[in-house]
């Protein structure tokens, strides 16, 4: 299934993605010479690579969920709004005196509910994913604003602050949470038949249903996971700024998540996905953003620089260039990550 076109086996899997990340890191090292300088203070690592992991954590979470959804030939545009809802629920919870654990559970529950809603619209009602999730993308931010009554809800609950500023084993909590969640999802899909089901549904829903794959359940499941991961990202983002910013939390982040999947070699036509490479894609994106911020260009160039670099990376990964590279290096075999 991974080799229908015959071009992909000529280059090692993940090669272009890792090369892009390495290039992005190298660009950073040029821009700021002490980029790789790490420093341990108060039991927490400080340094630019840690910043990239920390800032990239929400995109990593969204990207992993998005990779599963896209593999079923779907798309989840609502993840940014779900982030805003989850952050608002968590902040409103502690503001109303609920224990922090309950507030976070409610926030994650809201994410699951949103995912379920998307899943039902797509799997049961048969609405096209881009339309079905657009509903929540637009309305969800309104729901979040309703919860915060249009204000930025600031909180000082110590446990939530620890999630934003604390460390586990020297790494920021957000980084540990994001990587652990990604690893968990990876185990869940690759150690069971789930990944096969997801890819089967993406390649041909009818055929897979006839072959006995519970395609509706698989669809609901991927949207549910995407919602849960988005809610997790929402809690992390709120904890990071110690406030729920319903208007801006996760704004346009669904596009970053889609880009991370594409940079990770996922096909928007479904059926092919790699969670590991999606994480690499998300981190590449964040590394580029960091590089642009550090370079000291006037801010008017931010978006242009980003677009240019992304275009170059995508061209490098394209089948045409892959085939060219394959002819130059004919004997490299596929390496599975």
């Amino acid at each position, binding site marked *: 299934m991974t080799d229908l076109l015959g071009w992909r086996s000529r280059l090692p899997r993940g090669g272009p993605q890792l090369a892009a990340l390495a290039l992005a890191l190298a660009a950073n090292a040029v821009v700021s010479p002490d980029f790789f300088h790490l420093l341990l203070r108060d039991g927490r690592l*400080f340094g630019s690579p840690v*910043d990239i992991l920390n*800032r990239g954590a929400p995109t990593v979470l969204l990207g992993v969920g998005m990779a599963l959804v896209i593999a079923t030939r779907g798309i989840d545009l609502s993840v940014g709004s779900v982030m805003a809802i989850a952050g608002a629920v968590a902040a409103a919870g502690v503001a109303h005196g609920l224990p922090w654990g309950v507030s976070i559970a409610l926030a994650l529950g809201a994410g699951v509910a949103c995912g379920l809603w998307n899943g039902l619209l797509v799997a049961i009602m048969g609405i096209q994913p881009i339309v079905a999730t657009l509903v929540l993308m637009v309305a969800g931010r309104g729901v979040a604003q309703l919860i915060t009554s249009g204000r*930025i809800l600031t909180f000082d609950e110590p446990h939530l602050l620890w999630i934003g500023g604390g460390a586990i084993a020297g790494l920021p909590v957000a980084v540990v949470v994001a990587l652990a969640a990604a690893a968990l999802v990876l185990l869940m899909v690759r150690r069971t038949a789930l990944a096969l089901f997801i890819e089967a549904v993406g390649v041909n829903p009818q055929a897979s249903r006839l072959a006995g794959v519970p395609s509706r359940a698989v669809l609901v499941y991927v949207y549910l996971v995407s919602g849960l991961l988005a809610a997790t990202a929402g809690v992390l983002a709120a904890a990071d700024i110690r*406030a729920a910013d319903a208007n*801006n939390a996760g704004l346009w982040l669904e596009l970053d998540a889609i880009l991370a999947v594409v940079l990770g070699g996922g096909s928007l036509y479904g059926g092919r996905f790699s969670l590991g490479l999606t994480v690499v894609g998300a981190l590449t994106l964040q590394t580029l953003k960091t590089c642009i911020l550090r370079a000291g260009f006037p801010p008017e160039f931010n978006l242009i620089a980003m677009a240019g670099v992304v275009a170059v990376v995508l061209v490098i990964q394209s089948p045409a260039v892959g085939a060219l590279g394959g002819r130059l290096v004919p004997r490299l075999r596929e390496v599975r990550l």
Partner: protein
Amino acid sequence: MSWVVRLATSAALALILTGCGRSAGPAQHAGQLTVGFAQVGSESGWRSAETRMAQDAAKQRGVILKVADGQQRQENEIKAIRSFIAQRVDAIFLAPVVSTGWDEVLGEAREAKIPVILLDRPIETKDAGLYLSAVAADNTLEGRVAGEWLVGRLGGKACPVVELQGTVGSTLVANRKKGFQEAIAKAANIRIVRTQSGEFTRAKGKEVMEGFIKAIGGANICAVYAHNDDMMLGAIQAMKEAGLKPGKDILTVSIDGVPDIFQAMAAGEANATVELAPDMGARALDVLAAYRKTGQAPKFVQTPSRLFLPDTAAAEYARRKGLY
């Protein structure tokens, strides 16, 4: 469930119908003014405060204020204005979400002889007669007040400044930037070493400040100028997490005057903010009252851009907490 909806709809319909029946003349009770307010939306705490204070001011003056939330879309605001015209309100307040494309609908208001007062943002039009008056702050002045505070505070000490800009491309950002530059132009000791967009949000403000600290070192930054308080609140966290003391190691000055910045000032973590007064509704009502009495109105009413410092911060926070 559906019968509740149906009942509510028919009740609302009945209300509208009887309302229409009664108002052969202007839709108002005897002697009471009705004003329609086409508001941008509720996209920020400041915007909500502006709406709330306009409602309070209307209540105090016995004016009926109908607020239409445009949800940050021009077509919604245009629809709201048309419905206000149909209801034959006595005046329309408009906080325009964008600056162009208002000529047609404001022309309709003029034909219906309903005066329009612009709030908070300007519009671009060749025909200034389309609106009666505009109530707004001078954004260049805000930047200048912020810059002058820094010049005075430093007293000649050399000072590299980093700037957190708002969303690239808006007039507001250009003016707040220009005002600050004008103020520090005479001071050779102050120069802006880095400028980057924090998109008016806390999260981006924090991320960009983190980058500034890594790129040039916290010890090489003497002050931060942010185009709004929210970005500064994010930057303050970035400084604290990098082991710096905002307000002491690095001076801060920002614009808007939202409650949380007063809390930060009271805690000694911020130094100054320039208020963008949210009481524009009250000023517009005053302009309207004077216009109805004398038939004259000033074309532009400038709201003050006051500087607030830590000494009054605790009291100001208590006063604003409920408003925003």
